[in-house]
């Protein structure tokens, strides 16, 4: 046992000495490699945490939403639809929702305006999300000017500011009274933005949705499951940032691998020959290469993951914030709950450490199987 440990430690010693010979090159290698792991792990942590939080939080979203479609666009829905939907068996309740977007030309930001009956607001007053409070410098009692659909000014007073803690949901929200909402957007009575449908038996949601579509062919039901699925897919591998990062990482890795594969220089080949000649077995040489590859990749892996965790969960993902922000100026200040799992780490390990280590060993394989007597002739 101690014999094996001694042997591996001796070989590791030599592997490290070997790496230290090209200090600059290998330091650069570890740095770039760490950055690759950092980028991959950041994407993974960020998207996983976001997805998990979305799945958890949006589980409470309305189970069924019905929107009216006109010429492929979402349109106002007549309240008369409510009664028709109520007739369908299994429907418990139908509630209209009033919501929409308002573009604030003053600061060039988009708000989401929402009417909520649970906390009815007096007319001429609003509650604003923390993000709006920030960009508009608003506090309780501030007055905000809006322009109605017909160009007439509407002044609304801020009555409350939504909790900063829920900014991931409500940063750009403005809660408003139904009367003000209709005045602002000129929505006639008898219409709503869409309807939420409560179904008695959760198993029947799909059936109810199908029936709604059958009776009201100009509507589009949106199921909670679909919403959840949307968030499952929102940062999948096809998403822009993810692809950029993955491509970058892949490219960097290919450069490494190529460098490794092509990089078994005459010098390295000669060294392998010498080792064989002084009594190292092929397996010993491969173990040496294994340690060389592992020490580089494990170092990069551990550092990259730790840095990524700091980046995403302790520093609130500054690099991704700028990407997600895009052209918008109203951006929520949110801190993600660090949902990380061992399986994520295992996947990262498998995709970063394993290939590099293998890429280090494989090219040496051929060199390591040469006959030791070759070295007598060099």
């Amino acid at each position, binding site marked *: 046992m101690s014999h094996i440990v001694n042997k591996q430690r001796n070989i590791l010693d030599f592997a490290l000495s070997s790496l230290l010979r090209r200090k600059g090159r290998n330091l650069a290698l570890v740095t770039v490699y760490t950055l690759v792991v950092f980028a991959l792990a950041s994407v993974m942590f960020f998207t996983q945490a976001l997805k998990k939080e979305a799945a958890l*939080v949006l589980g409470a979203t309305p189970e069924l939403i019905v929107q009216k479609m006109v010429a492929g*666009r979402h349109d106002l829905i007549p309240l008369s639809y409510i009664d028709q939907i109520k007739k369908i068996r299994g429907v418990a309740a139908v509630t209209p929702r009033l919501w929409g977007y308002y573009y604030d030309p003053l600061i060039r930001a988009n708000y989401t305006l929402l009417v909520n009956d649970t906390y009815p607001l007096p007319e001429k007053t609003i509650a604003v999300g923390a993000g709006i409070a920030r960009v508009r410098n608003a506090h309780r009692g501030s007055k905000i000017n809006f322009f109605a659909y017909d160009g007439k000014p509407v002044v609304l007073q801020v009555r409350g500011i939504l909790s900063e803690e829920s900014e991931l949901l409500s940063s750009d929200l403005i809660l408003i009274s139904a009367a003000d909402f209709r005045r602002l957007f000129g929505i006639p009575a008898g219409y709503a933005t869409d309807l939420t449908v409560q179904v008695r038996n959760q198993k029947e949601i799909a059936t109810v949705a199908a029936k709604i579509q059958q009776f009201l062919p100009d509507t589009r039901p949106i199921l909670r499951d679909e919403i959840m699925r949307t968030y499952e897919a929102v940062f999948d591998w096809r998403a822009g940032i993810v692809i950029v990062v993955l491509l970058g990482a892949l490219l960097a890795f290919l450069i490494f691998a190529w460098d490794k594969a092509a990089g078994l220089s005459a010098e390295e080949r000669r060294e392998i020959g010498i080792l064989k000649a002084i009594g190292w077995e092929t397996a010993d040489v491969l173990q040496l290469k294994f340690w060389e590859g592992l020490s580089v990749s494990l170092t990069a892996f551990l550092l990259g993951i730790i840095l990524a965790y700091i980046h995403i969960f302790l520093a609130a993902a500054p690099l991704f914030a700028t990407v997600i922000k895009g052209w918008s100026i109203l951006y929520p200040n949110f801190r993600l709950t660090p949902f990380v799992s061992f399986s994520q*780490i295992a996947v990262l390990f498998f995709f970063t450490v394993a290939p590099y280590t293998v890429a280090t060993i494989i090219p040496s394989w051929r060199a390591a199987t040469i006959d030791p007597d070759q070295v007598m002739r060099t």
Partner: protein
Amino acid sequence: MRKSSIFLIFILGCTLVLSLVFLDAHFQTAGDLPFLRQEIKVVETLKLTDLCLTTEARHTRHPSQADWHSPFQSHPGALDHFPSGAIIQPPETIIKGYEPHRQ
């Protein structure tokens, strides 16, 4: 000290930090539960359907509620059209309205 010792101590140290990271994640997640419960309540009472990640365009603010065509009607700088959307800026006249003030 021999090189392998230094290296093993370094790796052990990193692994320790990584365990601390996991511990931190564990306690953070546990500590966030009341806050997550509050978020769930917000979704429930306000009947929200989406996360407020980016207010850039309708289909990015409310991905689940978007019209079928909205990615094409909305902001041309959207990332849907990768890589063009991610790299090429939309025409000046269109992005003007979305840009922050510049003095």
